[in-house]
């Protein structure tokens, strides 16, 4: 290991050869998967390819964006990011809401939470000029969005799973005259908890068990550790806020959607994932 404890941080640029060395790890893992018949070598390789292509591409896009810091471009970039996140949330559901709801539910919730949280942070905390300066806006939104997406996907998945497996209980509660809100309350609470627990755990373990990726990346790229840590704390809080509020919104809307205007449990509004 190199010693970087010196006073002046040095940015060591990685060459293609360096990255290729790291890629050997992935290849080795794929071979192991083949030998153990895990059946995930294809997905592993495709994902590794995707990460390479997508990140290189986004690097170029960000470079372009940073050179042309126009609000419209930042807004378009943000819109693309949220649409992709919405698709990802939908793709992760074992049972998804049919029709536009499958995509709309997660996307709307992420829009409400991630956007609000990121804009608040940009305007009130960071105070960059302009407030939408892409160097701050895009990475922040990306991190908040990525984590909110996880929370919402987990929460919605648990909600629909609860509704399906506990159908008889829910309908008994309805039959006893409880309204939909009361009948689904336990399942909704559970789903929201499930969505929020990963970020709560991440905050509790940060710095002791794990060094968060953003901070690590900043330090590797030469930022003084204390500055990197301050940004990491900010990002943790933003992520927690975005995930928490986003999960609450998504699960609450989803719970409402499980019942129709006569407060019947409508599992026919869910579709099993085809893959």
């Amino acid at each position, binding site marked *: 290991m190199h010693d970087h404890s010196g006073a002046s941080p040095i940015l060591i640029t990685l060459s293609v050869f360096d990255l290729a060395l790291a890629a050997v790890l992935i290849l080795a893992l794929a071979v192991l998967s083949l030998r153990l018949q895990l059946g995930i070598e294809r997905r592993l390789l495709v994902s590794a390819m995707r990460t390479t292509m997508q990140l290189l591409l986004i690097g170029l896009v960000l470079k372009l964006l940073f050179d042309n810091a126009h609000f419209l471009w930042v807004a378009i970039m943000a819109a693309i990011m949220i649409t992709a996140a919405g698709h990802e949330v939908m793709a992760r559901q074992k049972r998804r809401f049919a029709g536009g709801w499958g995509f709309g539910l997660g996307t709307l919730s992420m829009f409400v939470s991630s956007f609000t949280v990121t804009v608040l942070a940009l305007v009130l905390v960071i105070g960059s000029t302009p407030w939408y300066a892409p160097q701050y806006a895009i990475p922040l939104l990306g991190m908040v969005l990525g984590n909110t997406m996880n929370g919402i996907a987990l929460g919605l998945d648990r909600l629909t799973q609860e509704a399906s497996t506990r159908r008889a209980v829910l309908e008994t509660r309805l*039959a006893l*005259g409880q*309204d939909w809100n009361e009948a689904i309350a336990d399942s909704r609470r559970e789903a929201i908890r499930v969505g929020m627990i990963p970020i709560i755990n991440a905050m509790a373990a940060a710095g002791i068990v794990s060094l968060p990726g953003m901070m690590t990346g900043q330090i590797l790229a030469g930022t003084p550790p204390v500055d990197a840590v301050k940004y990491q704390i900010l990002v943790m809080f933003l992520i927690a806020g975005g995930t928490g509020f986003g999960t609450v919104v998504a699960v609450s809307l989803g719970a409402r959607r499980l019942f129709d205007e*006569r407060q019947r449990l409508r599992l026919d509004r869910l579709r099993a994932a085809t893959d």
Partner: protein
Amino acid sequence: MATLALHQFQALHVGPLDLTVGAGECVCIRGASGSGKSLLLRAIADLDPHQGEAWLDGRRCSAMPAPSWRRQVALLAAEAQWWSDTIGAHFSTGCKPVWLDRLGLPPTALDWEAARCSTGERQRLALLRTLMQGPAALLLDEPTGNLDEDSTARVESLLDDYRRSTGAALLWISHDPRQASRVAQRCFLLVDGRLTAECTTTAEPARS
């Protein structure tokens, strides 16, 4: 006192059918598995989408908030469901000790853990849970399906008293023709989504 009436009532492959269960009357429905008996009861309780209309004493189901309809036209499902740990947590207003006693349950039954109760105990307790809401009409899906002879007799007698004292309308699904003739004034057979009158028994209706 309440009359339950169905007009051109239709849910999936059941109906359209017309049926009136008078106040203080018990009507039995029999039919093969899959004939749609439970489906019919679920739709009357407005738990499933349906066509046509159900009336309780001239009040339309669709004109009432669903929860209050379901409190008055109460469905007792064949499989009793419990979600809290103790039985008592499911009884918001407690349970009449005399009813527990009549079903052969001790007063401490409310302290029992739901998960540790036998199927028969759960079924009897579920009936009491529903009766404590004081429904005006009862939709009973094989309420004695998991009970022995003694408990069956106790349930039949309690439901008979409830019907007579409150004038409730009972729609009772049973597999057993002998039970049908014991508890019901009229019996129907559900075949191909249609109700055919099967028998008129001598069991007397409630005082009017």
